[in-house]
């Protein structure tokens, strides 16, 4: 299983806020936002909640589980 996300979409929906600006708001580095968007880094619950709060969405609206193909079989 992997963690997918709609972070990039959420950023564009929210006045095309930059990664740098979003990072400053939630208190992380731009590199962290970039890594989350690319699915290379799984954020902590706290950071996921911070992001959800900022975008005024639920955590599930931003993050979702990508089921492993082998697991599905």
């Amino acid at each position: 299983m992997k963690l997918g996300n709609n972070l990039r979409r959420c950023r564009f929906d929210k006045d095309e806020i930059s990664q740098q600006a979003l990072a400053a708001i939630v208190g992380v580095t731009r590199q962290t936002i970039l890594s989350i968007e690319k699915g290379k880094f799984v954020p902590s619950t706290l950071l996921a909640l911070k992001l959800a709060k900022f975008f005024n969405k639920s955590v599930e609206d931003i993050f979702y589980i990508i089921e492993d193909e082998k697991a599905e079989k």
Partner: protein
Amino acid sequence: METTIEKIIKLLLVFTVVAAGFLYWLLPKTKLARHFKMNETLFIVTNIIGMICGIVGLVVTFLFPQFIIELHLWELIVTPFALIYIYWRLIMRIRKNTEIVDEKQDYNMTRAGAITMAFSIPAMVIMFILYYNRIFNGPIWFPYYFFVTLLVFSASTLFLFRKA
């Protein structure tokens, strides 16, 4: 008997330690304190300095093994990294918070620590072979181990952090 170079290096180190200690005590009490904060650039610069100190230290260890400890060269080489670490501590003190790196940086540093630990084993095996064949002797293993770990830790932290 102390040589002139050794005296100069010792004086330089004592001055640096005293100045760093004084600034560590003084700066939080000044208006400059609010400008001190952790950011991505500082994190990257810290690791680049760690890599440079590690490379320079290893080169000097292999080229001048008889002087690196006697002349306190290894302390001098590690001074820039030590100073930037003191700056990190200063930020922690000013912000009254020890968590100045974000969760990804923390995660990257933890992984880099594991990589460094794994790497240090073959590195020390190489040193053992060099000692066994009498190429090196004395306490040279210490600066070698120190600079290898510094280089590997800094390089792997930077690599993992930059790898988005």
